[in-house]
């Protein structure tokens, strides 16, 4: 056999894949332990499709619906938060568990810290007011939410806060409807909004 070909085949090809997986796993574990992971992410299966969830040391920072391109979501996290973005499902276990319970109808409120970094100014204020004040099975109008956030005439701005909610489902923008009960819009699609409201027994007739 010619030496060039032998080299190109690599050392111990039989053991490469297993050893490689183990090396990556050990690296990820150590990176987490050494505090080198600024943004950890995982994929969570759900009845509304696979959700990409991402967290920082401060809390849950992003939930993305399956319709969003994961590569774009991760690029955006790298650009806006930190390029130290690592796939680390173990770090998102509490989020996964609570989402599972929510979709099974066994959880009414999320006990998850939120990192609000991706929402700023008035939008952040509105989302925080929504997260703190509108519970499972309740709905609220855009105008009412504007009033609660202290700017009664800003219902249009409330609409754009909902449209750019970085943490949907957990920060419940699906509970925000048009005055009169029309569904309004939803980043994950109106079918998903309908499905979440129906799960909560709050679908307007």
């Amino acid at each position, binding site marked *: 056999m010619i*030496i*060039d070909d*032998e080299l190109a085949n690599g050392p111990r090809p039989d053991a490469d894949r297993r050893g*490689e997986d183990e090396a990556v796993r050990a*690296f990820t574990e150590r990176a987490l332990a050494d505090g080198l992971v*600024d943004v950890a*992410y995982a994929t969570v299966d759900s009845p509304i499709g696979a959700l990409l969830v991402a967290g920082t040391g401060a809390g849950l920072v992003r939930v993305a619906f399956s319709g969003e391109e994961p590569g774009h979501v991760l690029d955006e996290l790298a650009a806006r938060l930190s*390029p130290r973005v690592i796939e680390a499902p173990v770090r998102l276990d509490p989020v996964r568990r609570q989402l599972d319970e929510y979709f099974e109808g066994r959880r009414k409120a999320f006990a998850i810290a939120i990192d609000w970094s991706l929402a700023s100014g008035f939008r952040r204020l509105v989302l925080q007011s929504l997260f703190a004040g509108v519970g499972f099975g309740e709905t609220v109008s855009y105008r009412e939410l504007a009033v609660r956030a202290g700017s009664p005439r800003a219902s249009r701005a409330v609409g754009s806060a909902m449209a750019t909610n970085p943490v949907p489902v957990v920060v419940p923008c699906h509970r925000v409807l048009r005055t009169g009960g029309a569904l309004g819009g939803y980043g994950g699609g109106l079918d998903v909004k309908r499905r979440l409201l129906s799960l909560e027994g709050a679908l307007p007739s």
Partner: protein
Amino acid sequence: MRSATLSEGAVIGQRLPPFQALVDEHRSALYRYLVASVGYHDAADAFQETMLAALRAYPGLRHGGNLGGWLFTIAHRKVIDAGRAGARRAVPVAEVPEPPRPAATEKGGDRHHELWAAVRLLPPKQRSAVVLRHVAGWPYAEVAAVLGCTPEAARQSVRVGLARLRIETRRSGTAEEGP
């Protein structure tokens, strides 16, 4: 991505991709490079140390050009450091034996083992040059970027390393050609 070089103005200001993208793109090639350079036993540690060092330094990079070359430069240095540390331990054994594997009892398995043991015993620069060129299949310009030398010097390191391997393992080889 590897084809970009540090001197290209176009890559300045290019945003850094998520580190996981770097891991996913280069993990297989990097792991193979390390198995070839330090052996199967030490490859996992070397992989972990290379990736941790890269992750630590990553946010300080000024642009996202030639990240693969950057990663392998770190790996090349780790491999040299590991070799020095091994020499300092001064264990009077030339080489730590690999655990026996099923095929190793056959003649072919022994020959295979012999080749890779010889690769690991090459001087670091020749070893990295041979592995990047012939295991990873890189062009000389990129091998040179990792070794910090000219493409012609990289070609020379590969040539000398291969000649040494052929003599020590009594193998034939094709003429060294390519970009």
